[in-house]
């Protein structure tokens, strides 16, 4: 391999998870990073530019791995990058193997596998300071000699060894003959696992010669911390406490910035309306694009906060403990212990919850978790529950002291959990059938979080969310807007509405009440309104009329849209919220053609059950599409959740009628 000075090098970073790879990657590339997915899989592809003694090199951050045996997707990707088979990635000239000095033997295992690819390897030894604090000693030169590979001790935070690492990488790229040992397949003849044994005995010898261990090591700090954090009783208690804080943050702390964003987009939309001539374009921009995109961007504070916590919990090493504590319970359903946190976060919002499933390595376990996450009652369902309860169950009590509102609220949350458990159980035995996932998981030493890594992780996630989900969501918002807006030129049946519309067009002044009438009239004749009429026979067995049908269709964009759509339908104005008395009384007073009330407590309960179980959130579908890299899974999710929701709502309504309610 001859390299001219002008030749731009490609360098790959490989190593175990928790070895300090991300910290080193950040230190080498600074803020100039690109994150994308490898085509066809959800393995993250992180690349950056490393200023390597004057000339820039391309740095690829491979996924963290314990082995290169290609049994997991991560390993397959890493392997094909190293062999140069990965499309769109140049075969690296040098691999920098990040090795944690405190965990030398297991970390060196992957290094011996790298040797097999006959690719120049430079070992970057991290955590030496920690290793030496434990009164152990390491002779870096000796280790390099034993491994027949350059070894550089580095500290990404202080910058120690970074220059030397660059020198060694450049040198290695210019050398053609690697002296490192190769463990070829001949070893495999003496038993299926002989190669693994050969690697470890080579490693044991190298480590023995180059390190001196303190015979009476201090009790590791991590073990002391774990005496409390994974304690059979206090450990669970602390886990609940941690979850409460996370929950509190995404549920209530996020509301301040969310309200601000909502107001900001509302203001922007109004500004457009005021300053642009009335017409389709204005309506498209203000009601379609700004309102649609705004409705999604509003989730950003929740996503940022959840990922701040997840990065913190992961970076400190607590996440692995949470999985350790919860695995027994989760495995009863067929899920991995690591599914616990994403599912709990989904109570605030399924979007960050689904994004958080990335910590689950096994694809089937991860998909099963993603598929049931939307059953957790998210914050967007709250306005719907609140409205229904306020309209039909307010002030009632059972046994004289328990409020029906609280019981119903609890029942809705429980219903979601129970269905999620059942569905996960079924999925894991059918479509996502797999032997119980192996748990085998490292409990890394506790570490102080690296602020930069945490922030970078958080911002990367936020950006990915905005970019990818945003494009799909934009398209769907425009579609939904169009459904509710067109056809425009059909003459409305009520002359009063038409006059109102003409009056608005003529002098630009809007009388709120008439405006609402106009909107409601328009909605009735829109495609969405027609759809509402079309689906009426289907939703009639649930006790819903076409107006509720329109609200249902609209709420497939986002659940809380139900409230504003009902407001339009019942002519009380778009800005009515869930506790608005006018909306509540409008719902109570709504009559069918034959004079019977549209809404009964049973209808309200049926609607709530439907909302617990139905997939009415295009943002979630877009995120599922992104995370599973296929349209199949979001469509499957949408399909089966709608079926379950319909069936449960049907049972609720018809069952309720049989019992004499409604």
């Amino acid at each position: 391999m001859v390299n001219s000075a002008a030749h731009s090098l490609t360098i790959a970073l490989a190593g175990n998870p928790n070895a300090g790879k991300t910290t080193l990657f950040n230190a080498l590339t600074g803020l100039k990073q690109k994150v994308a997915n490898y085509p066809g899989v959800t393995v993250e592809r992180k690349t950056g530019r490393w200023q390597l003694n004057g000339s820039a090199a391309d740095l690829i951050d491979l996924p963290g791995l314990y082995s290169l045996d290609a049994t997991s997707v991560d390993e397959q990707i890493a392997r094909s990058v190293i062999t140069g088979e990965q499309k769109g990635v140049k075969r690296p000239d040098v691999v920098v193997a990040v090795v944690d000095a405190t965990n030398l033997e297991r970390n060196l295992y992957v290094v011996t596998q790298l040797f097999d690819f006959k690719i120049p390897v430079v070992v970057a030894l991290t955590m030496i300071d920690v290793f030496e604090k434990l009164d152990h000693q390491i002779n870096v030169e000796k280790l390099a000699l034993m491994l027949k590979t350059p070894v550089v001790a580095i500290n990404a935070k202080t910058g120690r060894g970074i220059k030397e690492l660059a020198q060694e990488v450049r040198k290695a790229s210019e050398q053609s003959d690697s002296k490192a040992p190769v463990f070829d397949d001949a070893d495999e003849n003496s038993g299926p696992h002989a190669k693994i044994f050969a690697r470890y005995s080579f490693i044991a010898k190298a480590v023995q010669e180059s390190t001196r261990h303190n015979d009476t090591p201090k009790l590791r700090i991590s073990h002391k911390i774990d005496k409390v954090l994974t304690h059979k009783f206090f450990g669970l208690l602390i886990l609940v406490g941690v979850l409460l804080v996370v929950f509190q943050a995404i549920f209530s702390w996020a509301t301040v910035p969310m309200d601000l964003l909502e107001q900001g987009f509302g203001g922007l939309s109004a500004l457009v309306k005021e300053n642009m001539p009335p017409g389709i374009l204005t309506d498209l921009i203000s009601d379609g694009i700004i309102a649609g995109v705004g409705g999604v961007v509003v989730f950003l504070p929740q996503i940022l906060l959840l990922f701040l916590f997840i990065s913190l919990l992961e970076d400190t090493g607590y996440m692995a403990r949470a999985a350790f504590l919860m695995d027994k319970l989760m495995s009863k359903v067929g899920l991995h212990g690591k599914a616990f946190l994403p599912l709990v976060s989904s109570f605030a919002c399924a979007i960050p919850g689904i994004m958080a499933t990335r910590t689950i390595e096994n694809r089937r376990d991860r998909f099963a978790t993603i598929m049931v996450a939307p059953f957790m009652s998210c914050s967007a369902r709250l306005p719907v529950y609140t409205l229904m309860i306020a309209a039909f169950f307010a002030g009632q009590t059972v046994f004289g002291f328990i409020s029906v509102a609280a019981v119903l609220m609890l029942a809705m949350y429980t219903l979601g959990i129970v269905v999620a458990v059942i569905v996960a159980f079924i999925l894991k035995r059918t479509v996502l059938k797999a032997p119980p996932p192996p748990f085998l998981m490292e409990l890394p030493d506790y570490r102080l979080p690296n602020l930069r890594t945490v922030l970078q992780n958080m911002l990367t996630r936020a950006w990915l969310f905005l970019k990818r989900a945003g494009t799909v969501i934009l398209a769907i918002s425009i579609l939904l807007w169009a459904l509710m807006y067109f056809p425009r030129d059909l003459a409305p049946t009520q002359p009063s509405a038409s006059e109102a519309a003409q009056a608005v067009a003529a002098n630009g002044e809007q009388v709120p009440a008439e405006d609402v009438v106009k909107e409601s009239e328009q909605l009735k004749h829109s495609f969405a309104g027609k759809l509402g009429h079309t689906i009426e026979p289907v939703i009639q067995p649930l006790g819903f009329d076409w107006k509720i049908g329109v609200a249902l269709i609209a709420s497939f964009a986002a659940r809380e849209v139900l409230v504003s759509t009902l407001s339009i339908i019942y002519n009380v104005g778009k800005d009515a919220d869930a506790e608005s008395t006018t909306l509540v009384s409008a719902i109570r007073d709504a009559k069918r053609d034959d004079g019977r009330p549209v809404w009964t407590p049973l209808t309200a309960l049926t609607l709530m059950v439907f909302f617990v179980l139905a997939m009415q959130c295009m943002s979630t579908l877009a995120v599922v599409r992104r995370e599973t890299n296929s349209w199949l899974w979001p469509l499957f999710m949408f399909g089966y959740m709608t079926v379950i929701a319909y069936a449960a709502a049907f049972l609720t309504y018809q069952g309720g009628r049989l019992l004499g309610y409604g």
Partner: protein
Amino acid sequence: MSENQRDRKMTEQTTLNTLPIGACGRVTAVNGDSRITRRILEMGIIPGVLVQLIKSAPFDDPIEVSVRGYSLAMRRSEAAAIEVTL
């Protein structure tokens, strides 16, 4: 069955999942030929290595094992494949 148990006691041969908390053992064999077996070996649990059972999780499963200076969590069902001598 009882003979089997006596045999085990005499050679002090047992499996990792039955070790009392805090006990150390030396791995003699890792049984099976599945992906999980391979992963256990690749994580450094190979014949000859010392393992210590640190603790078990709240519902007695999974367990935390110390090996080669790091902590590894595994289910008891996985640990049952790992033979150790005390």
